[in-house]
């Protein structure tokens, strides 16, 4: 239902009160006054007055109220706009917040990915180091098999010989022969034992750099394992310091260093040649010099030879990790490895390790 505006109400009320007054005052007046012409004139005057003032009231109040209403309208409009703005701003803020959360999640997930990649990288690095170790050992296993099969051949020979003597119950008559078989048996066992012990040193997995390392023993171990690679055309000259050289270090690591350097020396010699190994002590350092008369290293390559994966060897002959890992192990020993090389003449690797 439409509400009746205030100015109409008040004007209507005024008109009603005025009308009632005129009607009642006429009735009351007519009780006392006889002359109706006067009262009639008065009545008309009253009607006129009430009507005119009612109209004036109406216009005056209407004008006043119109202003008020407009102000109200503007205020309402402002309020609405404010609400809209607030709603919009809230919305924007929520959106920004959502974006921030999403970004946060992204950063978190990226962080996680990075962490995983780093872990993978570390694992791969370890696998590579292990792979290089296995590759070095792979080069070695054929040699190890040969070195063990020979003493096993002694043992087999001794067994067959002794069995025959046993079957014919002829130990007493063949004393000399039996003694020889027993000697072959013992030599066979000793040789295989020493090879297996040497191999165990290679596989010695420990992080300690505080182990007592006998350099001559380590070099001899490496040479024994590399025995089969040392072709008869390669002459080996050993010139060791008169006493044992003991240093503090990592046994397995040092085995890897010398094996890698020696494999390189052997592979550098294509036909005839020699490898000279010299050890000495000088100014608190143990020096090991491994000199070959092989191909030599190209001067352009010499700075890169300790880089991971740098190799000039044919595929399958080297991973390019040997010297890189040897160099790392040398650094871990606070030691140094130096290369002198001339193309066509050979290479000398000098390793200097701090004496304990």
């Amino acid at each position, binding site marked *: 239902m439409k509400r009746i505006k205030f100015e109409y109400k008040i004007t209507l009320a005024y008109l009603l009160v005025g009308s009632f007054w005129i009607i009642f005052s006429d009735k009351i007046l007519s009780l006392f006054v006889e002359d109706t012409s006067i009262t009639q004139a008065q009545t008309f005057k009253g009607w006129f007055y009430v009507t005119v003032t009612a109209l004036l009231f109406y216009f005056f109040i209407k004008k006043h109220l119109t202003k008020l209403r407009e102000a109200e309208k503007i205020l309402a409009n402002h309020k609405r706009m404010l609400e809209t703005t607030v709603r919009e701003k809230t919305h924007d803020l929520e959106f920004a917040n959502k974006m921030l959360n999403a970004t946060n999640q992204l950063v978190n997930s990226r962080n996680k990915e990075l962490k995983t990649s780093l872990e993978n990288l570390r694992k791969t690095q370890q696998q590579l180091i292990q792979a290089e170790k296995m590759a070095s050992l792979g080069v070695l296993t*054929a040699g190890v*098999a*040969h*070195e*063990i*099969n*020979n003493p*096993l*051949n*002694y*043992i*087999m*020979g*001794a067994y*067959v*010989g002794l069995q*025959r003597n046993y079957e014919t119950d002829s130990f007493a008559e063949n004393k000399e*022969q039996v003694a*020889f*078989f027993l000697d*072959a048996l013992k*030599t066979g066992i000793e040789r295989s034992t020493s090879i297996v012990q040497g191999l165990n040193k290679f596989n010695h997995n420990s992080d300690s750099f505080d182990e007592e390392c006998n350099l001559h023993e380590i070099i001899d171990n490496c040479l024994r394992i590399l025995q*089969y690679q040392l072709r*008869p055309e390669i002459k080996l000259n050993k010139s060791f310091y008169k006493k044992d050289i003991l240093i503090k270090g990592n046994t397995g690591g040092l085995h890897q260093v010398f094996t890698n350097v020696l494999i390189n020396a052997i592979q550098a010699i294509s036909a005839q040649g020699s490898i000279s190994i010299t050890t000495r002590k000088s100014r608190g350092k143990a020096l090991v010099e491994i000199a070959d008369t092989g191909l030599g290293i190209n001067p352009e390559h010499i700075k890169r030879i300790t880089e991971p994966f740098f190799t000039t060897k044919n595929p399958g002959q080297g991973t390019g990790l040997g010297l890189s890992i040897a160099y790392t192990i040398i650094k871990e020993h606070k030691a140094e490895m130096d290369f002198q090389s001339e193309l066509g003449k050979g290479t000398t690797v000098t390793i200097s390790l701090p004496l304990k």
Partner: protein
Amino acid sequence: MSPRMKIIYVDDESMNVQLFQLIFKARYEVVTGSSGAEALDLLEKHPDTQVVISDMKMPGMNGLEFIARAKQKYSDKKYYLLTGFEIGPEIQAAIESGLILNCFQKPFNLKEIEDCINK
């Protein structure tokens, strides 16, 4: 019964040579040497040799180099390797080309060798 079969055995490790001699002399006549060059001399001296067994890794000539040279002059003999190595491509090729009849591996298997050379 026919006279005993004559075998030349070559190995640079004297322990292997002596053991081979002692084990095989029961049924064969065994002549031994310690290098390819020495074995070529033995072949010259013992033309009645039927079987030649050689080690692979020896100073100077290796087993296959020695056999290749020996076979040119004495092609009527049976040649074998006895080695501590696995049978690699080089040895495999020698078997396929007929340069050697077989490759025995160390530690030796008496029955395998006897069965093979008696064939």
